[in-house]
């Protein structure tokens, strides 16, 4: 179905560009979703406890 016009052959059609862009966006959305899944988990208490103790040591030492 591709017409043989040498100047345009090398360039992707605008429909192809649109689709490529859509795919980029789609993967981007999924990627953020994957990352945000962990970001939105509740932080284990351990983290805050460790930090609290370190802060307490700082206060005691000086």
């Amino acid at each position: 179905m591709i017409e043989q016009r040498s100047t345009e052959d090398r360039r992707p059609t605008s429909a192809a560009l649109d689709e490529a862009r859509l795919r980029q966006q789609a993967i981007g959305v999924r990627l953020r979703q994957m990352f945000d899944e962990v970001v939105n988990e509740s932080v284990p208490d351990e983290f805050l406890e460790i930090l609290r103790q370190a802060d307490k040591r700082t206060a005691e030492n000086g």
Partner: protein
Amino acid sequence: MAGARENSPPRSPAEDEAFKRELVQLIPHLRAFARTLCGDAAAADDLAQDAMMKAWDARASFQMGTNMKAWTFMILRNQFYSEKRRSWRQSQLDQEAAERTLVAVDDPEAPVALDELRQGLAMLPAEQREALILVGAGGFAYEEAAEICGCAVGTVKSRVSRARKALHSILDDGAYERDGGAAGDAMRSILADAERLSTVR
């Protein structure tokens, strides 16, 4: 970093408090980044905790008002690679470790396409995966990602671009297959999602 601390002025409790508040808000992001880098959820949390404590200990060398997120991500990344170097002989198969990480899904009802995206990511070279995650998911500018990875901006750009292309073909061509469907299904499912999202906006 330890040297910088000796020469810096003493810190007030208020400064420490402000630092701590900002650091606490970054914990979820550190956990997410760690999860993309290492073994499993538990190992990732160990790494995130180590990075958090390193950041706390080095707080005197951090200038408030500058980008703490990028700074802590850099600490976490350095921590990850220095640990890995140390234990290189024990775990030389880091590609396998990456696959375990990214494939490990805590939620059995997680969308299939997300699972396959993880698999696809696991097939990328580590530096491409990392660049794509920082820019594509972490919300960092190319310049910030370059700083975190300790490389040139152009290098990050080309890694991200190569990662995107590779991911497309992995998801498209069915380089990976799972029970009941070729990986091409993953791309279709991802596309369907994107269309739905774009109509919502």
